[in-house]
């Protein structure tokens, strides 16, 4: 067995070399550049702020990674976040915080199950299905909320976000916990490896007898639940729910996953990569704010980074003969 472990470690090393290490290099470069450019960037306060800003995008991007690994895409994450947050807000009024959070997670799961079944069982393109769910979700968010913000959330909600766990606030702790658990799941369990196999060669996975249907649906459910978690944390932070919450979030999440080295064709990508992708995006936003750059330029900056990251990845992998 020791030999076996050694084999896997060697494989993992090579894999790291291929993918995340390059992105980590990019992240450190951005980090160093911003540290030099702005005296405020490196302050402890700002670093914590950086992690705090990563929570919502990070959790949604984690779910998105699952979907993209199977070769799909989930455009509905932003509006699922919005509608589940509204459901939570309404439920809390009558049944309390625990029930509200539970209702949000369950409805997020149901939304994901709906998309997943249509994509995996009926073979519809994920782009189209989740585009539809995106529209439905946002529309329901308006209807359920009566087009108004829900601003009567109990103050105890903020405990969900600010209770320190091992010295870090609980929202950052949940982000870390989610990334550790999903990393372990994708790398070392039957289900995780099945998801990679499906994304890499669905037909081979099917013939090998893997549960292709089940593990094609699961990523959408995870994505829906994670969107709901992100919505809960977001609402708890500001103690209010806006039916517009999460608008445009799908683009940030997809961008983070892609910057993290995942292939939109499926089969390639990792949680570590996605986390780095999220941090790069948040750092750039944060840094540009600190430098006083107009927020209207931020979109261009993020866009350039996405395209450059993918272009570099393509050029490098073409040269090494991979991909």
């Amino acid at each position, binding site marked *: 067995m020791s030999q076996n472990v050694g084999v896997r470690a060697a494989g993992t090393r090579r894999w790291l070399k291929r993918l995340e290490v390059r992105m980590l290099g990019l992240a450190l470069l951005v980090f160093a550049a911003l540290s030099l450019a702005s005296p405020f960037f490196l302050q402890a306060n700002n670093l914590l702020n950086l992690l705090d800003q990563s929570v919502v995008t990070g959790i949604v991007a984690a779910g998105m990674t699952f979907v993209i690994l199977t070769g799909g895409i989930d455009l509905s994450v932003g509006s699922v976040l919005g509608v589940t947050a509204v459901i939570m807000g309404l439920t809390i009024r009558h049944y309390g915080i625990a029930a509200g959070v539970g209702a949000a997670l369950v409805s997020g799961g149901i939304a994901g199950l709906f998309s997943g079944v249509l994509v995996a069982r009926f073979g519809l393109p994920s782009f189209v299905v989740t585009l539809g769910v995106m529209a439905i979700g946002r529309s329901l968010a308006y209807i359920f909320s009566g087009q108004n913000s829900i601003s009567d959330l109990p103050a105890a909600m903020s405990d969900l976000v600010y209770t320190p766990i091992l010295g870090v606030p609980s929202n950052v702790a949940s982000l870390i916990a989610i990334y550790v658990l999903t990393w372990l799941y994708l790398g070392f*369990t039957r*289900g995780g*490896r099945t998801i990679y*196999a499906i994304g890499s060669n669905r037909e*081979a996975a099917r013939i090998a*007898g893997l549960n292709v249907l089940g593990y094609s649906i699961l990523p959408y459910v995870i994505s829906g639940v994670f969107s709901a978690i992100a919505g809960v944390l977001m609402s708890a932070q500001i103690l209010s729910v806006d039916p517009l919450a999460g608008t445009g979030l799908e683009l940030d999440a997809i961008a983070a996953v892609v910057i993290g080295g995942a292939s939109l064709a499926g089969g390639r990508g990792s949680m570590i990569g996605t986390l780095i992708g999220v941090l790069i995006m948040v750092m750039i936003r944060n840094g540009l704010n600190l430098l006083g750059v107009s927020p209207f330029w931020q979109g261009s900056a993020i866009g350039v980074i996405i395209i450059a990251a993918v272009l570099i990845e393509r050029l490098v992998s073409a040269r090494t003969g991979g991909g």
Partner: protein
Amino acid sequence: MSDTALLSARGIEKIFDRTRALACASLEVRAGEVHGLLGANGAGKSTLSRVLSGQVRHDRGEIFWRGAPYAPRRPREAIEAGIGMVMQETSLAPDLTVLENIFLPALARPGGFRPRAFRAQAEAILEGLGQAQSLPLEAEVRSLSAAQRQLVEIAKTLAMEAALIIFDEPTASLSPGEVERLFDIITRLREEGRGIVFVSHRLEEVFAITNRVTVLREGRTVAASIPTASLTQAELIRLMAGQDVSGGRTSSRTTANGQEVVLEARHLAAPPKVRDVSFTLHRGEILGLGGLVGAGRSETLEILFGLRAPAGGEMRLEGRPFAPHRPREAIRAGLALVPEDRRGQSIVPDLSVQENLFLAHLAARRGFGVGLRDREAEARRLLERLDLPAGRLDEASMLAFSGGMQQKIILARWLLLKPRVLLLDEPTKGVDIGTRRSIYDMLREVAASGTAVLVVSSDFEELLELCARIVVISDGTTIADVESALLDETKLTLFAAPRSSMGAVSSLLAALVAEYGGVAFWGLIDGSLTEGGRFYCLARVGEDSAAEPGFRAGETPLIAATRIPAALSAPKEGFVREAGGSPATLLVPVKSHRGHALGWIGLSLAGASLPEPAPLRQRIGAVIAHEM
């Protein structure tokens, strides 16, 4: 044949990743000759063809085309130079019409698509090939037969005015009648002064059509431009296989030996590909599923493995009804499938070699983790048995491996599960000759340990070597179940011919029965067998117990065991009456117009008054010469 070389290639070398596909290959083709390019599977024939037609760039070596250096970087350059290739797996666009496909390359030239001019040109090309009636120009290519598609490919190269045409295994999916027609076309092309490269490993065809041959072995040319007429089949086999590999098959075919039935299929149907397939598979046996490409063999395996829903028929696994709806159910029941298309159906490129090896295990396992520990010892034993260095397991991708190595890993993937039934689809496609041997040995060993093995292959030699029994499928229907000791490639080819292309024979048989009664049949007589002559019945029409010949289509009885031994053992000009007085049988030899013997057509009649044999003989002979 002119004496100057049209094309000459010397010292061609090509390395794919780590595999040396061509080591030192050379080829010289003259105008007005058919040049055979021969070699076993994996010898580099296809790679060399692809180099010449610009699909692959060679690493080293030089090519001269009409005396000038030639190094095509893409297919377009080869086309413009005048080198065309008729592909093994066709390169046609199925949704476009025949006409559009023929002129597809012309779309890239200035001038645009001129339907009327193109139409006239296409008609002229087909006329020149003597095939004016065989291709509807407005039909979608999707609706064509394999032979018609090939004709489109040929017309396509001619529309580009190719002076050299490479045919890559052109007969793999053709019936004998269609092969004859293709040979007519090739002969015409040669007479027009074009150079033809004919890539094949079927020796009879090589002798029938080529003027000179070049033999490749393990990527190198071992015999260059030898006149075909100066060679014997045995010499050619020795050149192709090398000295070390003895040609002797028959050595160790695994027979069922009365073992119990493991898997039984009765009248399986999944139209349009599978119509009526039946067979029984015994424990410890290697059974062949033979037939032409597209006959429905792969689809039959798909039904067995739960990849395709049958519309009719039943399957029994160890006596119990068996109807898997997905591969997982088939695997849990003890089946395993090594599919044909490794890249598309087996390899997961983003998983490591080790994970690829354990993929089926991952699926079969219950529980949360990946559990490689469970099968580690078995995996190590298998890798050793298959000569796979354990060190290569940690490589990141299987794609860098040679075809043979890949196939060994996929085979090991399934053997890890210790299946009761192992299904293999073209198990040595793209596998080099050395690895082929070890795969054969492995399959024999697996069968000997009690697994039932079912092999689908288009390579009849492979089936004859490996299998004790061969079930032949043609147009989705099982038509014969014959011991392979009784078969050779010629007989297998005739059994496997699509019934549709044999329509002329069938309608002749039906017409004879309608007119004269009795039983009409078509088959081969083989008197060369040691235990006495046998009759191989390919087709039969008519139910008349008084004229019963004593065999049905697909049967291969000893002549002595039939009801018409006198007629079959000594065919004469007229009717031969059996010893008991009935029936009387007329046998007429069938020859194609190229002179190939295609067996005998017989008419058995009861009763005393017999028709005049001479006009009958003429009628039977005439139909065949025109229609086959």
